[in-house]
């Protein structure tokens, strides 16, 4: 028995008190989506509205925002997989001395509030608007920076767990080219880190509000705020669905992460 662990009673008291603090708002939000507009009793109407064509105009901004957010998630994951990952592999293989400097840069966005970044991004996005257009997907460049610390940590943990140097040398000795080494030798070995990095990037992108809102791009979170002004029920329903989706996503990340630690204990 772990002597550090609290007694069963202590555990339950803390669990129930803190649990209530989180359960009450969540239950309130769920009950709110069943409430009649005039406040008398409960109804399923708000949920069926999600699928009814007559109400589709209410949800219109959400679908547009969700579409943009998903596109952004794809582009951001592409930045993580095809720009960040190769650079990290290169640093691990050829520039191990740069590692701490690289880590410093990768974790830097934690110390720079998004609201500060957006002040400097505004003029840059003015230029991007002129050259690449004002499409929502361009936000992915900024999001790549936002997810950088999370993605870096997941991928670096995988790189540390696998002996990339020996794997590479072995593959090179056996005659593989660099592309084969990266795609068919390293990527499969780093798959757990890459998967976790991708999933956390998706979660961060779907939850991002600050940058999109101040650069006037329509994404899921900004759409929620717009819809909330016209139909609070619709916004609440989408919020519940989004929170549930993110929860499942993070459960999967947890599984992936644990799989990694379980496999690589030396």
């Amino acid at each position, binding site marked *: *028995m772990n002597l550090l662990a609290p007694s069963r009673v202590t555990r339950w008291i803390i669990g129930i008190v803190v649990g209530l603090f989180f359960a009450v*708002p969540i239950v309130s939000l769920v009950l709110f989506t069943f409430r009649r507009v005039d406040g008398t009793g409960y109804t399923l109407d708000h949920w069926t509205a999600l699928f009814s064509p007559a109400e589709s105009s209410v949800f219109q901004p959400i679908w547009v925002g969700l579409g943009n957010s998903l596109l952004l998630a794809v582009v951001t994951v592409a930045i993580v997989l095809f720009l960040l990952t190769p650079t990290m592999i290169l640093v691990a293989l050829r520039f191990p001395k740069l590692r701490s400097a690289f880590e410093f840069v990768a974790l830097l966005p934690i110390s720079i509030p998004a*609201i500060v970044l957006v*002040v400097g991004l505004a003029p840059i996005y003015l230029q991007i608007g002129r050259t690449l257009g004002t499409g929502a997907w361009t936000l992915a460049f900024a999001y790549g920076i936002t997810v950088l610390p999370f993605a870096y940590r997941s991928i670096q943990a995988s790189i540390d767990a696998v002996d990339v140097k020996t794997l590479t040398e072995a593959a090179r000795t056996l005659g593989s080219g660099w592309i084969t080494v990266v795609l068919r030798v390293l990527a499969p070995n780093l798959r757990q880190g890459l998967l976790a990095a991708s999933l956390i990037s998706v979660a961060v992108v779907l939850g991002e509000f600050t940058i999109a809102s101040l650069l006037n791009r329509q994404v899921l979170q900004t759409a929620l705020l717009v819809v909330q002004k016209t139909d609070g029920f619709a916004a609440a329903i989408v919020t519940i669905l989004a929170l549930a989706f993110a929860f499942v996503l993070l459960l999967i990340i947890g599984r992936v992460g644990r799989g990694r630690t379980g496999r690589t204990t030396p």
Partner: protein
Amino acid sequence: MTATATARVDIDPGARPAATESRAPSRRGRAGWAWLGLTPFAAYILLFLLLPTVLAIGSGLFDGAGRFTLDNVAALGDPVILLTFWNSTWVSLLTAVIGAVVGALVCYAMLGLSDSGFVRTTVDAASGVLAQFGGVMLAFMWIATIGLQGLITQLLKGGGIDIYANGPWIYELPGLIPAYITFQIPLMVITFFPALSALKPQWVEANLTLGGTRGGFWRHVGIPVLTPAFLASLLLLFANAFSSYATAAALASQGAPIVPLQIRAALTSETLLGRQNLAGALALGMIVVVAVVMWIYSLVQRRAARWQS
């Protein structure tokens, strides 16, 4: 804006072989090419991390015509601006302290539970969602709870208690507090649990064998060992609340009681000429506060990491 930014400096085992390799002349030419591989990422970081940061700080120090000026920085001394900085500071500090204490208790309650058990996996995932994903949605949750038509508001009203007797404070500064605590506690759980789980059960056993008590263990060993990690997490929570924007933007519909909302006001108002540069000055003020906090964080974290490997 989350995380365990462990300021851990690893001694890289790969460093030595690389050094011997670079002595071989045949390899040196290849290393020259390898540098090129770093350029795309370097260019990306330069354009989307360093340039915006420099622009944000710079726009506070230069006027519209590009001349160096301290006028915008002087505007930070304006009583309204000072008040928003003060508001941001105390709300962040209050929610950081509450979040840290409650979060630490939650971590303590989870000690000894299996890593892959139901409780741990659920709490981990839920913490991640609330700490990193929330923002606007946390605001909706609290509006549904203690908003003017909220569940608890209505229940209390039925019992004769009007929590809004003094006006709708949920849409003002005090309304941020419950919403902020909702993301501070989970962030504390994420950042503090690794430190707490690094306490070794053998230490208690040793302490008990030598005639100590469990209470004595916490007083003389557990708490002193954990204090740096706790302080580091507390600082991270403060920086997190101080930089948070989404929740406040969704809750406080009018006015700008905290700094990020002042930045929004300065960025979006086109009526006053030169307000754009005020946004820069505010951003500069924020980054100074956050940089100082994160610097102390890295110092404290370095001490905390001593017991964590």
